[in-house]
């Protein structure tokens, strides 16, 4: 119930005295109210900022933290106040809610921080007042969309190939994401080239060329070099057909694929050719055939797989459908009105070009869009007056929905840019996080080493042991306990890779090592060695130039270091096992420098127009042994 109601309840109860003389039955006994009626001031200390309020104020909302007995948990007897270790700025808004009954959303605050505070104090966000509700909802939706986009981006691009994918799945993946393999990239470029060739051929075909000997008139090049153009057309259509059939074969859901826009465009682009082949040289149908050739120009839309900008444009138009519809509708109305008026205004004049209302449509459109060809011109005064009104209103009607469309486009474009930016930043972030994790893992190993060495020589190690904080000590002790529990030990990556090598080569160490827990989870899920073996095999196939897919943590992990021939010293002191198996890790077998071909402007061969988050092209270069330096180069996508 609202605060107002709680305050008025005693009044309503008192006014119930008015029912007493009319009552048919006796009144029930009132509830016994034991709580003290006197009001007191409560002190609430939020991170040092002291707030004071009446107890009644907080009691207004008994289902929140401050209004219920839950706040007793935060009571500090020494200072006789309630202490909350939260943001005092936000608390101000929370307290105002109790005071005024309306919750306001401060616009300068982050929506997530605000939500968290509300959750902490037990207030449902639905009671935000009308004044701020719209802003809150908008920000929340924006935030959710952003999160959804990010997770989608991560999933879409970072999922490595599932271990047992069929060739069909691999093919589909190659089509969708041409950066996954060289073949896909090659194919992508080839199709792009042929689309361009086909479009240019269509265009050049109609240009007049020098007539051959014996004729006077200029011939279009298409007729003069008919055979050449026909061959080129055939080649292009063959490539397109082949591509379409491959896509159809690889598509996970054929029906859905056939219904998608891109596939329709593909079909429309190649159909005219086949129909032309099939059709006889008939006079009647050749007219229709010529029409069909027009559809060849749809091949240019195939470029939208290659260009993100085109896709954004298409998506914008789709999302602004209502505005476009309104524009069209209002234009149509205006055209009809003005055409009618002009026709009747110009009806009397001799030799008028306004022969009918549909004929006036053309005049109206040309005038409203301020083209003004001048092929139809009003002669009467009335006609001129209405003509001018027509052009003025045309400017207005067209100018109205355009900003909406423009702002939509700008929003979607920025969203896309943001997605690309996020991806680039993500990789740097991940790299830093990994370095930090490695740091802690190494710290633990160092700690262990210190301890074992410290048994022998206590003086020198005392210092380094002391320099670590109590937290580190306890953390390291915890990791140590885990080691003892599982009877496994933490190591670093070099030794881990060595051990993997030994396992694949044929030696079986009785103890499998697990990577430090933070990194180990993902690796262990697929088993370190089978993947590695496959990767090596794949690498041999691909001739050691493999383009790396983005952001995959374990791929970057595993691909990015060379083994050294010296076994690391930290292991030797700890291992009980005989690992004087000198591991002959052949360097060449291990990861070579991975350089990916600079990828084209970020596109994915999508099936549908809505912008799927596109992968940021990156160039990953391998530097020295264990240093993780990435240089990502982002090529702007439009």
């Amino acid at each position: 119930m609202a605060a107002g109601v709680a305050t008025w309840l005693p009044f309503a109860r008192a006014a119930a005295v008015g029912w007493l003389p009319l009552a048919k039955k006796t009144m029930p006994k009132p509830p016994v109210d034991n709580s003290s009626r006197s009001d007191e001031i409560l002190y609430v200390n939020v991170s040092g900022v002291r707030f004071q309020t009446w107890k009644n104020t907080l009691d207004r909302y008994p289902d929140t933290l401050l209004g219920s007995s839950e706040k007793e948990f935060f009571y500090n007897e020494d200072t006789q106040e309630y202490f909350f270790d939260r943001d005092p700025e936000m608390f101000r808004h929370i307290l105002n809610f109790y005071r005024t009954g309306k919750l306001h959303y401060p616009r300068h605050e982050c929506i997530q921080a605000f939500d968290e505070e509300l959750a902490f104090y037990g207030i449902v966000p639905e009671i935000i007042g009308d004044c701020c509700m719209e802003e809150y909802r908008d920000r929340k939706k924006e935030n959710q969309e952003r999160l959804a986009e990010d997770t989608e981006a991560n999933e879409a691009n970072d999922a490595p190939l599932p271990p047992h994918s069929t060739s069909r799945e691999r093919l589909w993946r190659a089509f969708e994401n041409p950066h996954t393999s060289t073949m896909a990239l090659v194919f992508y470029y080839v199709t792009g080239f042929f689309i361009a060739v086909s479009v240019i051929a269509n265009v050049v075909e109609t240009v007049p060329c020098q007539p051959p000997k014996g004729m006077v008139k200029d011939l279009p090049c298409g007729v003069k070099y008919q055979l050449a153009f026909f061959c080129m057309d055939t080649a292009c259509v063959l490539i397109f057909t082949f591509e379409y059939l491959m896509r159809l074969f690889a598509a996970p859901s054929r029906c859905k694929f056939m219904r998608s826009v891109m596939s329709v465009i593909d079909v429309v682009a190649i159909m005219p050719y086949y129909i032309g082949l099939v059709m006889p040289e008939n006079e009647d149908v050749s007219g229709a055939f010529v029409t069909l050739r027009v559809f060849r120009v749809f091949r240019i839309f195939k470029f939208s797989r290659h260009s993100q900008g085109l896709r954004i444009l298409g998506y914008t138009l789709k999302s602004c459908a209502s505005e476009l519809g309104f524009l069209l509708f209002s234009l149509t109305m205006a055209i009809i009105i003005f055409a009618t008026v002009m026709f009747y205004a110009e009806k009397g004049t001799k030799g008028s070009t306004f022969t009918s209302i549909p004929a006036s449509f053309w005049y109206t459109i040309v005038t409203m869009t301020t083209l003004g060809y001048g092929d139809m011109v009003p002669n009467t005064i009335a006609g001129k007056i209405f003509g001018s009104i027509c052009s003025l209103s045309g400017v207005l009607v067209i100018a109205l929905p355009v900003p909406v469309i423009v702002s939509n486009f700008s929003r979607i474009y920025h969203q896309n840019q943001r997605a690309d930016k996020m991806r680039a930043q993500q990789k740097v972030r991940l790299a830093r996080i990994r370095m930090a994790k490695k740091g802690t893992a190494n710290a633990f190993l160092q700690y262990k080493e210190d301890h074992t060495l410290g048994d022998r020589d206590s003086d020198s190690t005392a210092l380094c042991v002391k320099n670590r904080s109590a937290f580190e000590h306890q953390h390291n002790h915890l990791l140590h306990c885990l080691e003892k529990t599982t009877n496994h030990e933490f190591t670093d990556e070099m030794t881990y890779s060595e051990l993997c090598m030994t396992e694949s080569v044929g030696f079986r160490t009785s103890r499998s090592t697990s990577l430090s827990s933070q990194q180990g989870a993902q690796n262990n899920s697929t088993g370190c060695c089978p993947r590695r073996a496959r990767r090596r095999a794949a690498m041999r196939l691909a001739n050691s130039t493999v383009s790396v897919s983005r952001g995959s943590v374990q791929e970057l992990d595993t691909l990015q270091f060379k083994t050294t021939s010296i076994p690391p010293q930290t292991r030797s002191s700890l291992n009980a096992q005989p690992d004087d198996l000198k591991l002959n890790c052949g360097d060449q077998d291990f990861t070579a420098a991975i350089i990916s071909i600079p990828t084209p402007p970020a596109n994915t061969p999508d099936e549908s127009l809505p912008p799927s988050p596109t992968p940021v092209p990156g160039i990953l270069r391998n530097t020295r042994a264990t240093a993780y330096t990435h240089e990502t180069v982002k090529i702007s996508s439009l």
Partner: protein
Amino acid sequence: MIAVLVVVVVFVKVLEQFGLLEAGYDDSVEDELELSAVRHRPEGLEQLEAQTRFSRKELQILYRGFKNECPSGVVNEETFKDIYAQFFPQGDASTYAHFLFNAFDTDHNGSVSFEDFVMGLSILLRGTVQEKLIWAFNLYDINKDGYITKEEMLDIMKAIYDMMGKCTYPVLKEETPRQHVEVFFQKMDKNKDGVVTIDEFIDCCQNDENIMRSMHLFENVL
């Protein structure tokens, strides 16, 4: 010819638009200023303490709550209706709220100030039985002429039954309020003249044990 007419009409319309805008603008601004100037400050705490039976602290608590809800210092009928609508959501409490508002608005100026509010509450919560009965009579006597007629009683009764709403057990019938009024008049109207005077009312209530007992029910509300 027609074209000229059309142009003239359009021109006039445009002028009208602007003319109207300018003409109407000033009035509305002044109106708004007037409304917002209404603000009421209550009499001093000592005076209220003397006039009512509340202690200082109780008055403070009451005023704080009142001022929180109505920063302008007065309650108007709409607010009353809203409040009662929230207390009795199943039915329509607006009619009864209207009568109640009139009962509280002793000086009949269309708004209930804090003094009116506190005086009313003082009678209801801390007054003698006699005073409470007089207050109740005042509530029933809609036109404040000192007599409760059957029509007035019927209005009050209907208002109360309206608050119950539709979903009741047993189902409310059309003639239930009327029957209730008949019963009431039979009890109260001693000389059967069709109206109930204040003396008849008080006498009758004081002789009724149930009513007497229930008068003390709401004393510890505040």
